[in-house]
C-alpha cells in the first residue's frame, strides 16, 4: 500500500501533468484522424521522450495509446469513418445515432465507456501484473526463449494476410534483429564493413519507417480529404445533453463491465488488438442483449460494448508486456521499445528494484483514462474538426517529424536513411499483404530471444538441447501453446475457405437453376 501512496506522490509534478495532458489530447487527435493509428502516434512521440524522465515519458506514451483508441470513435460516430480499426464496430451504431440527431449522446456513451474500460484495465494491470511477474522467477533462459517465440507465433498467426505471411513477417524481423555486433561474443554480423551497422539497426528509425513513412506513401495512393461539409454538418447538428438520462446510463453498466472483462482478456492474448476485442465484445453484447434488433441501427449498448472493450485491451496488452516482455498488441510492442529505452526491463525486477518507476506509470495510465473521460465530454465534438485538416498538409508534416525523430535517437543521419529505406520496405510489405506488427515485435524480441537461446545452450551443458528443453515442465506447456497458436488459425482458415467455397458453389447452382 505504501508503494501506491508513494506512486501517487511522484505523479504530483508539473512534468507528469503536462505529459498526461499531451498524451490524452494528442491521442484523441491522432485517433480521430483516419489513417493515423495509436502505433503511429506512439512511434512519432517516442523520440521526443528521450530528454524526459522515465515516469512522465512513459505516462505520456501509455496515455496516448489509450486516448488514441478512444479518439477513433469520434469520427466513427460523427462521419462513419473509424479513426482507428478498433472503432470499426462503433461506426454503424454511432453514425446511425448521429443521423437520428443523437450524435452528441453517442459521443457521451463512447467517452464514458472508453474511460471506464480503460480504467478497469488499469486496475487489473495493477492487481494482476505484480503476482504474474513473480511467476517469471520460475523462468530460465529456455523458458524466456520460448516465451519470445510464442509471442511471435501468436502475433504472426493472427495477421490478416494469413498464417504463413504473418510468420514470414516475424522471420524477416528476426533476420533484421541479427544485424550488428553479437552481444555475447562481440562478433559483427551482416555489417559488411559499415561501422554504422556495428551497433545494429536502431529500432525507432525502423519503426518510424515501417509505420509512418509507409503510411504517407499509402496516403499518396488516393489523395482524398475528409468531407469538410459532412464534418461541419455533423458538428452543427450535435444538440441536447451529452450525457444520457441516469436510467439509460444505468442500463449500460452491465454491458460495459462485461465488455471491459472481455477486452482485458483479449488484450492479454499476444497479438490480439483493440479491433478484435471490440468485435468479440460487440458480438457477445448482441447475443445477450434484450434489444439485439437495434444493433447496427443505432444502439447505445453496441457503442458501449465496442468502446469499453477496445480501451480495456490497452491495459490488458500491458500485462504480458510488463511481466514477460511479450506485448499484447502492435502498439504495446512499440511501448516495449520505450520501456527498454528508459532502462526498464520487463519481469519481476519491475516490481522490486524498479517499482518506484513502474507503479507510477501504471497509476498514471489508470488516471489518464479518467482524464480521457472528463476531457472527452468537453472537447470530443471539437476534436472532430481536426479531421478537416488536409492530408496534403499532414503527410509532409509526418515526414519532417519522422526525419527529426529518427535523427534524434543517436544524432546520426545514417538512422534517417534507415528510416527512408524501411518506409519503402513497409510500403512494399503492405502491398504484398505482409503485416508490419510481427516484424516490429521480432526486432524487439530478437535480441531477448537470442540472449536466452545462447544461455540455454550453456545451461544445457552436454545434454542434447532438445532433451534439455523437453525436460522442463514450463517448456512443455509453452511448446504446446506455440503449436496451438500456429495450428488453430490454420484450421480456422481452412474451415473459412471451405465454407466460402461451398457458399459460392451453392450460389452458382442457384444461378444455374434460375437460368
Amino acid at each position, binding site marked *: 500500500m505504501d508503494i501506491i501512496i508513494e506512486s501517487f506522490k511522484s505523479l504530483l509534478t508539473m512534468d507528469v501533468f503536462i505529459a498526461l495532458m499531451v498524451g490524452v489530447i494528442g491521442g484523441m487527435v491522432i485517433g480521430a484522424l483516419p489513417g493515423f493509428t495509436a502505433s503511429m502516434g506512439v512511434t512519432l512521440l517516442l523520440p521526443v521522450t528521450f530528454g524526459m524522465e522515465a515516469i512522465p515519458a512513459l505516462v505520456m506514451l501509455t496515455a496516448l495509446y489509450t486516448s488514441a483508441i478512444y479518439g477513433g470513435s469520434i469520427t466513427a460516430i460523427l462521419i462513419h469513418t473509424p479513426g482507428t480499426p478498433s472503432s470499426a464496430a462503433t461506426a454503424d451504431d454511432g453514425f446511425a445515432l448521429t443521423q437520428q440527431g443523437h450524435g452528441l449522446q453517442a459521443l457521451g456513451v463512447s467517452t464514458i465507456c472508453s474511460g471506464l474500460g480503460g480504467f478497469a484495465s488499469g486496475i487489473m494491470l495493477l492487481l494482476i501484473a505484480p503476482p504474474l511477474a513473480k511467476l517469471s522467477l520460475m523462468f530460465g533462459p529456455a523458458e524466456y526463449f520460448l516465451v519470445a517465440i510464442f509471442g511471435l507465433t501468436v502475433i504472426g498467426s493472427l495477421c490478416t494476410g494469413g498464417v504463413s505471411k504473418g510468420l*514470414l513477417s516475424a*522471420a524477416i524481423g*528476426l533476420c533484421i534483429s541479427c544485424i550488428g555486433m553479437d552481444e555475447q561474443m562481440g562478433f559483427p554480423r551482416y555489417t559488411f564493413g559499415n561501422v554504422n551497422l556495428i551497433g545494429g539497426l536502431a529500432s525507432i528509425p525502423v519503426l518510424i519507417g515501417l509505420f509512418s513513412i509507409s503510411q504517407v506513401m499509402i496516403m499518396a*495512393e488516393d489523395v482524398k480529404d475528409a468531407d469538410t461539409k459532412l464534418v461541419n454538418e455533423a458538428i452543427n447538428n450535435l444538440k441536447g445533453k451529452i450525457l444520457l438520462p441516469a436510467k439509460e446510463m444505468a442500463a449500460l453498466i452491465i454491458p460495459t463491465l462485461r465488455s471491459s472483462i472481455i477486452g482485458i482478456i483479449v488484450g492479454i492474448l499476444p497479438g490480439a488488438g483493440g479491433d478484435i476485442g471490440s468485435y468479440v465484445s460487440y458480438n457477445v453484447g448482441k447475443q445477450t442483449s434484450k434489444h439485439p434488433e437495434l444493433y447496427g441501427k443505432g444502439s447505445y449498448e453496441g457503442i458501449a460494448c465496442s468502446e469499453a472493450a477496445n480501451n480495456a485491451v490497452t491495459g490488458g496488452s500491458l500485462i504480458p508486456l510488463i511481466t514477460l516482455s511479450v506485448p499484447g498488441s502492435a502498439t504495446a510492442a512499440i511501448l516495449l521499445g520505450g520501456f527498454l529505452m528508459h532502462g526498464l526491463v520487463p519481469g519481476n525486477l519491475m516490481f522490486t528494484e524498479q517499482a518506484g518507476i513502474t507503479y507510477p506509470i501504471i497509476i498514471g495510465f489508470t488516471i489518464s483514462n479518467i482524464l480521457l473521460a472528463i476531457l472527452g465530454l468537453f472537447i470530443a465534438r471539437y476534436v472532430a474538426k481536426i479531421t478537416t485538416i*488536409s492530408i*496534403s498538409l499532414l503527410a509532409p508534416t509526418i515526414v519532417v517529424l519522422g526525419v527529426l525523430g529518427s535523427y534524434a535517437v543517436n544524432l546520426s543521419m545514417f538512422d534517417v536513411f534507415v528510416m527512408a529505406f524501411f518506409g519503402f520496405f513497409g510500403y512494399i510489405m503492405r502491398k504484398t499483404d505482409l503485416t508490419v506488427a510481427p516484424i516490429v515485435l521480432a526486432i524487439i524480441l530478437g535480441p531477448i530471444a537470442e540472449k536466452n537461446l545462447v544461455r540455454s545452450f550453456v545451461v544445457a551443458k552436454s545434454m542434447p538441447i532438445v532433451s534439455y528443453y523437453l525436460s522442463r515442465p514450463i517448456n512443455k506447456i509453452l511448446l504446446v501453446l506455440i503449436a496451438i497458436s500456429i495450428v488453430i488459425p490454420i484450421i480456422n482458415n481452412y474451415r473459412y475457405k471451405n465454407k466460402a467455397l461451398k457458399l459460392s458453389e451453392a450460389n452458382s447452382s442457384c444461378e444455374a437453376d434460375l437460368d
Partner: protein
Amino acid sequence: MENNRFISNDIFLGIFLAIFGIIFTIQATNFPAESSYLPILSGALLTAFSIVVLSFGISKTVKVRQGKADYTKQEIKKLPFIVWLTILLYVFAVDKIGFFVSSAVFLPLESMLFKQRKVLPIALTTVIILGFLYWMFVIQLKVSMPNGILF
C-alpha cells in the same frame, strides 16, 4: 484472356525472400557457433515460410488461370513512389544543406505534390511546424540538429 497471364505476387515475394533466406543462412554458417544460432534459425525460418508462400502463390496462379478462383487486379500507382523519391531527396538535402532550410523547401513542395494549391495554409503549416520543432528540439531538448552547409 486476362486470366491466362495472371501471376500471383506471392510467387515473386516467395522467390525473392527464399533466395535471401538461403544467402542469409549460408553467411551465418561462417560465424562463430554462439553467434550463429539465431541467424541460422531466422534464415531457415525465412526460407521455409517463403517456400510456403511461394507454393500458395503457385496454387493461386493455377486456380485463377483455370477459372476456379477470382482475383482483384492491383493497380500500381506512381505517386507513392514519387513521394518516396522526394523523401529520399529531402533526407540527402538535410544531410548536405541542413534540417531547417531543407524542411522549409520540402514542406511546401511536398504539400503541392499532394495536390494542395492554397498558398496560405502551406505557408502557415511550414512556419508553425518549423517554429515548433525549433522551440522543442533546439531550445527545450537542446538537440544538435543536422546542420549541413547552411542551417
